[in-house]
């Protein structure tokens, strides 16, 4: 099996998952299980599609971030302000996002749409690193937004474990009472966490459109937001853990593509199971971890 295509496909598959999972980690560490993440991804995809025309690629990514943040604000409004049930709110936010993106897309492009051909980000080659044999060009000859995704994990680690705000955010996710006693306002922090987290989900949608598909299709998020939520569990709510989780899923998915293209006489349904099977195995054998105590609770 050729290594290069496998590594390249792994990187491309992992990056959107990593962005969305990073966002979900932020949100869950503050105690909010953001099922609306899938909605943020599809909203980001459509916003990138609409934004890239007038504002260029950077504008497209910015629009994707904003659309994701808008879904996050909706979550924050109902979960933090109204204190509605997180799972129901998240489900509603995702359904709403699917409905609204479909309606807006057809409003703009007509009922049967048009064959959109959007500009996509050109690879930005990092000298020296891209020359590493085997993995160099797959990792370091990519659109610039990919490098942002690579940096997300160290940034999240630094933020959560090395800053005051990060400590406060973790405290809110574990014990809002204790955090309150220490003078931390839980509400604004939780609202900010779910908004920024959803914005990252939106960016993942932007990557799907502007760095990969070059077009928009309704439902093209195809469950990546939900998979990102699973990756956060798989990664035991730590930045390093979700990076490994995203890689497990990304590499397994890429293997699925490559194995099918080998032309071996294997039923394709079995090959398509591969990422899910490996993820389940990884879940069985990954070290135990504890979810934030306030996760998915509305009685904060």
């Amino acid at each position: 099996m050729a290594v290069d295509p496998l590594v390249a496909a792994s990187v491309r598959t992992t990056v959107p998952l990593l962005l969305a999972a990073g966002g979900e980690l932020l949100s869950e560490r503050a105690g909010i299980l953001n099922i609306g993440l899938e909605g943020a991804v599809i909203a980001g995809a459509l916003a990138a599609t609409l934004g890239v025309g007038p504002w260029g690629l950077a504008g497209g990514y910015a629009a994707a971030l904003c659309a994701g943040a808008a879904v996050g604000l909706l979550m924050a409004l109902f979960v933090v302000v109204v204190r509605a049930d997180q799972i129901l709110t998240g489900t509603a936010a995702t359904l709403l996002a699917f409905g609204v993106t479909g309606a807006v897309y057809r409003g703009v492009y007509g009922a049967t749409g048009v064959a959109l051909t959007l500009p996509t980000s050109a690879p930005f080659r990092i000298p020296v690193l891209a020359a590493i044999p085997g993995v160099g060009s797959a990792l370091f000859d990519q659109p610039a937004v990919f490098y942002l995704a690579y940096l997300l994990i160290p940034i999240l680690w630094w933020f959560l474990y090395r800053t005051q705000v990060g400590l406060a955010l973790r405290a809110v996710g574990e014990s809002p009472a204790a955090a309150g006693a220490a003078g931390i306002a839980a509400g604004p922090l939780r609202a900010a966490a779910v908004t920024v987290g959803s914005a990252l989900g939106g960016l993942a949608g932007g990557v799907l459109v502007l760095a990969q598909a070059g077009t928009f299709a309704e439902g093209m998020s195809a469950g990546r937001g939900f998979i990102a939520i699973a990756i956060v569990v798989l990664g035991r709510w730590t930045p390093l853990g979700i990076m490994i989780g995203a890689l497990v899923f990304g590499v397994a998915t890429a293997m699925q593509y490559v194995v099918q293209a080998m032309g071996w006489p294997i039923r394709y349904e079995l090959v398509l199971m591969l990422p899910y099977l490996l993820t389940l195995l990884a879940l069985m054998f990954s070290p135990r971890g504890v979810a934030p105590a306030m996760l998915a609770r509305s009685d904060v």
Partner: protein
Amino acid sequence: MNKRRFSIIINTTIALAVVACSDAPKSAGAAATPFRVALLTPGPVSDHSWNAGAYEGLLRIRDSLGAAISNIETKTPADFEDNFRQYGAQAYRLVFGHGFEFQDAARRVAPDYPNTDFVTTSGNTTGPNLAGLEFDLANPSYLAGMIAGAMTRTGVIGVIGGTELPPVRKSFVAFEQGARRANPHVRVLTSYIGNWDDVSAGREQALAQIARGADVIFQNADAAGLGVFQAARQSAHVYVFGSNSNQNDVAPDVTLGSVVIDLPHAFLTVAREVKDGTFRGRVISLGMTDDVVSLVLNPAMTSRIPAPVLTTVDSVRAQMLRGAFSAVDTLAPVAP
């Protein structure tokens, strides 16, 4: 109290989703009992392929027969039956379930609504008020395969589908047979995306095949297939054949042609029967001789296809139209 507030959110959301996904039935002028026709699609009608063609068919029925129309994009197979029943209960005259996968639900629902005629596209289940609308994709796919086999420089070509539905598989096997006729040593890679809307995954499946040397890819994956065009565009010397709708405009620089089903024509034919009262439950087979399926070459790309290849394709096409040759006869290994 939170619960009550919440149920308002949910209800509003569902209402919005329904509004977003369906056209409310429109009144057909002053007719007392309007001729009402509905369509269930398995995916968004903005896919430039299978579902878009059906929606255009529905619009054609509205414009040509003055029908009141409605359509729903079903989300899961569990919705198929509910949505059929919903239209049956409203006494729609004709309901299309657009895909092989709608057959079981249609078979269960049809006997309960004898005044409604049910048609499943590419189905073969029948009843008094239940018909299958079958398309002979094999012949045009075979012709596309002949071109692919002659055009490949690497001797490797690919087919990419959404899921392995029997009509899709049949079309792929015919494509392969056609390619072998042009190039007996051609190698055919087969990949399935697993769904019909993940554009990125469609692109990745294509890139994986291209990395294995595939340089002509035939795709039948609706919206997800849009990613195949994108992959071809980013690779050197890779060509694509589209399917279901005329996809030559999706990526004119890499698309050799499309295996097109004239769904509007087919839908209108059936709707006319229902309106005239001549409809019978049966398998309606439509093919090249009915002008419903065809291989439509991309005019911008025909200059890349060697003239002798085009001549051979034209003569085989002529044989098919005369009934002297059918690609279906070459498909022995394909189960029904």
